[in-house]
Structures are given as C-alpha cells and as structure tokens.
C-alpha cells in the first residue's frame, strides 16, 4: 500500500511543478531596469524638427513612457485604452516611437537618409494618431532603436512608470490591459504622486 503511494506522490509533485510552469508567461521577464534611473536620451519629437525631448524634461512629476509603432499589432489593441486613460489626466504619457521605419520599408538596395526616415515616420505616426486619438503629451522618435536598447525594449508595446526622481518603478512588456491598468499602474502612480 505504502509502496504504491511513493511513485504516485512523485508523479503528483511533477504534475504540480509542470502546471505551475505552464501558467507562467515566458515573456514576463523581470527587468533589471526597475529601480534604476531611466536612461537619458535626447530625441526629436514627432511634432517638429526643432523640438527635442529628454527624460529630464519630466523631472519632478510621475510619468509613463509608452513604446509604440504603427506597425505593431498589439499597440493597436492597447491604443483605445491609452486614449481613454489619458482623458482622466492622472498621469502624463510620453510616447516613444520605436523604429517606425523598418528595414523592409526601405527601397531595395537603397538606404533612406535619417531625414527621409524621419519624414516617413512622421507621416505614418501622425496619421495613426489623427485617426485613433493621441494619448501622448509628446512623442519622441527613436528611429534607429538605440534608445530602445538602453531601455531594454524587446517587444513593443512596452510601458514604463517613472517617478519624480526619474527612477523606473515599473515595466510592462506587451499591451496594457484594463486589469493591469487598474490593479498595478494606477495604484502605483497614485502612491508615487503622494511622495
């Protein structure tokens, strides 16, 4: 009787381990950037060539950085939620347009100049924001993805919550869901704004 229980127990243990493993999202990787200062950068904004954005500009307020692109399918899903959320004006959302012009967008054999890339990115992004609404106080253009690398971006959309001192407090890979917004982001923003 007892002998029969040992393999059964081992088997159940294995099942529990595997079941727990299956329920975890392999995309959810703890970011080493949480708790670190948001990497500095200086990029042209979507609005105009004579305007730049730096994280320093947001010093003293809690803000959200949302990495997006018009080619990103999940961004399309999360966008209405961001637009709705921005109307509450509880926290400024800064957009980071990530590699809007992809390698396959360039004509074969020819490389677009940075100016041409910026122009194309502007046209596309502005059209997208016009039709779908603009939740961003400002959007910075990360055309070559260098800033994305510094922020450890690997799956757009990504969202960061950054505190008044410029420290990253939260990072989300993938589309924001109403649940994440209500249970994680909003409570965190409220708490950070109090300090």
């Amino acid at each position, binding site marked *: 009787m007892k002998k029969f229980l040992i393999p059964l127990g081992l088997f159940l243990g294995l099942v529990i381990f595997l079941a727990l493993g299956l329920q975890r999202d392999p995309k959810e990787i*703890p970011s*080493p950037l949480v708790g670190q200062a948001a990497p500095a950068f200086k990029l042209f904004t979507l609005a105009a060539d004579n305007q730049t954005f730096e994280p320093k500009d947001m010093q003293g307020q809690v803000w959200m950085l949302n990495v997006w692109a018009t080619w990103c399918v999940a961004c399309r899903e999360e966008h209405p939620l961001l637009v709705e959320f921005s109307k509450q004006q509880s926290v400024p959302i800064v957009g980071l347009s990530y590699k809007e012009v992809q390698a396959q967008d360039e004509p074969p054999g020819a490389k677009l100049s940075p100016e041409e890339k910026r122009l194309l990115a502007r046209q596309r992004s502005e059209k997208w924001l016009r039709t779908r609404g603009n939740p961003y106080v400002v959007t910075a253009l990360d055309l070559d*993805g260098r800033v994305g690398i510094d922020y450890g971006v690997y799956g757009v959309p990504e969202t960061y919550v950054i505190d008044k001192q410029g420290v990253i407090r939260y990072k989300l890979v993938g589309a924001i869901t109403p649940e994440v917004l209500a249970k994680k982001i909003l409570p965190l923003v409220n708490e950070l704004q109090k300090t």
Partner: protein
Amino acid sequence: MQRFFALFCLPSVLVALCWMCLAFPLMAKEAEPNAQDPLVEARMLHISEELRCMVCQNESLASSHAELAGDLREEVRSLIRQNKTDDEIKAFLITRYGDFVLYRPTVKPMTWALWFGPFVLLLLALTAMVMYLRQRQRQAPQAGWTDDELKKAERLLKDGESA
C-alpha cells in the same frame, strides 16, 4: 515496384540531396558577415552565440533573424571596436535585458538551485538507492533457512514426535 523505385524515387532522392547540399551553406549562414573586419565579426559571433535573442527566446543572438537581434549584433560590433572585453559587453546587455540574455547563467546565490540542484537530486537518489540495496541485503538471509536452522527444525519436529 522496383522499376518504379529506380525510375522515380531514386532520382528524386538524388535531386533532393543535391538541393540540400546547395541549401545547407545558406542555412548555416548566421549573422550577415561583415567583410570589413573579420576579427570583429568572429568575436561578435563568439559572444552572441552565448546570448539569447529576447524576441525568439530559443534562438541565440548569433542565429536569430529578428530585427532586434540584428540591432544588438551591431551594438556588440561597435562595443568590440571600442575595445570592450567580453565580460563588459555581456554586462552591457545584462543591465538592459537582465540575466535572462545569458544562456549560461552566472553562478550566484539566486542560481544555486539551478546549477547545483540536479547534482543534489542525483546525490539524494544515489543515497536512496544505496540505502535500499543495503536494506535488501540485510533482509535476504532472513528470508531463507540456513542448513543449520533446517537441521534444528527437523530435530525439534522429531523430538516432538517422540515425546
């Protein structure tokens, strides 16, 4: 049937083999080679084979076709040109993407279970096996009767009859 094999199957297998020979060098090609500096390229490949592509997690940075992997290979190249050591380059990626980029996680208290867990399990299993075998050995002689015991039993039975 044999004729069918000779006429149809064999040539098609040969054609397929030829195709494979042609295709393999193409498939084996990893990151697009940078003819300008083969040394940089070799080091880049050496480092990025040890790194995970975050987009398609089961591919190395060296073999992935994801756009981000291409960007990161370029980043590694430029770090090599800046005379950074392998460890510095890995640290650059770890501060951005976490330990997860390493296929060979560093040994630290957090990863002890990962590194030594299998050996601990093996040791436990070996001890359990040794204990089990010893126990069985100890029990084995008790299961049968020795000659002395049999004689003794016989004697006792006879004594019982005569009494």
